[in-house]
């Protein structure tokens, strides 16, 4: 990956100097071990601050939402799929972007240093959309069971499931780091912040906590690329992806859908097809 950063810096410097873009969104060195900080480089003099390593796990597409200028962005596989999503959902225009594509072999978990959970089962390490690659495409993983964790929960009894989720969310403080780190969560007023009427309580009552997480997962269904930013952001180390993975599995099984792979199709909860499954209508 060291070769990547040389390329990233070279491309960024060139784009800034010749005015192709007004800024580059990338990462700079963090102050904490195993962390890096997203940054906004406007001058070619500052390109030297850019870094690329296994701690660049936060999804930078999150910083593109509703931007108006021409911008370059460093994007690994999952990030690029969120950029596709953003373009489909009109959060950014394709011609504003210069996507610096990074074929990725996985990011580190910030607590253990081992490979991050979502990277272990990733089948889209290569950017699906880019303007220039910083290295050769990597081999995509095959034969990984993306839904092993989900199947474990699906196999539980109702009481076990209840206890599982009750325990999982018991430490949630409603800080919304998961929501705010997610590129998909860009609603001007999130449903938890609505007051007329108010849908969810704002305190840490377990019912309100679970309502928030369940509903957010549903709002991400068919759009989530499993970038893992939500889990990486959570200060309480809650396995936030447990729910989003289940909905990802459902979309794959019910609609044959994987998010963010093509600009030509809209996510399943956005469109309707006559042969959509409807056996739930009795």
């Amino acid at each position, binding site marked *: 990956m060291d070769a990547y950063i040389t390329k990233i810096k070279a491309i960024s410097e060139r784009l800034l100097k010749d005015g192709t873009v007004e800024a580059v969104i990338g990462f700079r060195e963090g102050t*904490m071990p195993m962390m890096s*900080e*997203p940054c906004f480089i406007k001058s070619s003099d500052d390109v030297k601050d850019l870094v690329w390593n296994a701690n660049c796990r936060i999804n930078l597409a999150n910083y593109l939402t509703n931007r108006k200028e021409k911008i370059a962005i460093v994007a690994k596989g999952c990030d690029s799929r969120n950029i596709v999503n953003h373009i489909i959902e009109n959060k950014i225009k394709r011609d504003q972007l210069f996507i610096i594509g990074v074929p990725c072999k996985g990011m580190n978990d910030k607590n253990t240093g081992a490979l991050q959970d979502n990277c272990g089962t990733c089948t889209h390490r290569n950017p699906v959309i880019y303007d220039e690659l910083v290295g050769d495409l990597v081999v995509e993983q095959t034969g990984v069971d993306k839904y092993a964790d989900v199947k474990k929960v699906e196999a539980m009894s109702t009481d076990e499931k209840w206890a599982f989720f009750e325990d999982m969310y018991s430490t949630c403080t409603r800080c919304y780091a998961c929501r705010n780190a997610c590129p998909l969560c860009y609603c001007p007023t999130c449903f938890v912040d609505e007051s007329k009427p108010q849908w969810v309580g*704002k305190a840490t009552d377990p019912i309100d906590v679970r309502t928030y997480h369940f509903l957010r997962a549903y709002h991400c269904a068919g759009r989530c690329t499993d970038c893992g930013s939500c889990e990486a952001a959570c200060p309480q180390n809650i396995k936030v992806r447990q729910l989003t993975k289940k909905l990802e599995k459902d979309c794959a099984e019910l609609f044959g859908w994987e998010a963010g792979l093509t600009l030509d199709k809209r996510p399943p909860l956005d469109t309707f097809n006559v042969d959509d499954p409807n056996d739930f209508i009795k």
Partner: protein
Amino acid sequence: MMKVINIDKQKWAGGVESLSKSYRLFGPMKEDDSHNFKELKKGELPDLAYGNTKLSPKSTVFPPSEAMFTYTLDESKPDHHILQDVKKDYSPRAVLGMRPCDAKAVSLVRMNFDTPEYRDPYWMDAYEATTFVGLACDAPCSTCFCTSTGCGPFNEEGLDVLLVDNGNAYIAKALTEKGEKLLAAAGFADKGDDAAVATKKAAAEAKITAKIETDKLSEKVIMDLYDAPFWADIAFSCINCCTCTYACPTCWCFDIQDENKGNEGVRMRNWDSCMTPLFTMHGSGHNPRDKKPQRVRQRFMHKLKYFVDKYQKGIMCVGCGRCVQQCPVNIDIRTVSKTMNDYVAKC
């Protein structure tokens, strides 16, 4: 002045048990891969082999949510639409094993909740019922920078008792009457001496290499820092979650909200954060801090400048390092303060 007691570690469990008869006890408990302050059940001992907790013990006097009043909207009842007090348990309580940084934070926060004009009954009643027993830090974390905030690993401000680990025993310095009362209730009465403390204190302080630079900030007028050009750069990566404010022991902002179920309801007080856009949203839809750099600026200016100017008691930060450890995008208050400090020096 006040007593120094020697607590043989063999006698610790027994003492805690005695305390549990007349105090509700709170202490750090292991939770997965970290610690958090919890109310101790009968027979439980606080886990004192810890660095610091994920969330600060501010929740013992200032819970994330608490009921302020109840009310009924049922017009057939005589006191409908009139706020009723909530019965609270302010029986004596003790926080065992909090770090000196968190204890100093409680004294700083008190300045907000206890003013000449107004006294917040919920915070103050909890505070006055609490005896704070601190545990000095022998092994500060790499992110601790308390010594440059006017605090330190053996600091006594805000504590009623300071425990210093001395191998087979704790040296317990009773710092207030409340502290003496607690030690007596626990049955800890063996006379001790604090000769060993000074060396340990120096050793612990020497281990702290991280620092925050704020010496120039009090010189400048608010406006110069406010209009400084670096806020947009500092704020870019911020995702405006509440992680730093919830983890911070000196953050106190809260929201007041009514929650109803049918005809009954409760007026709640919940932790809130200046990092969220809704914090300052006017009913008209106008928002004086609708841009991210404005909110990020507010947080750091409040901690490092507004508080300093308003109370002249130093910065509103005790160097616990939680925000640095937990920020999802690694925004570091030490870096920000250096940027602010250097900017003042340059002007």
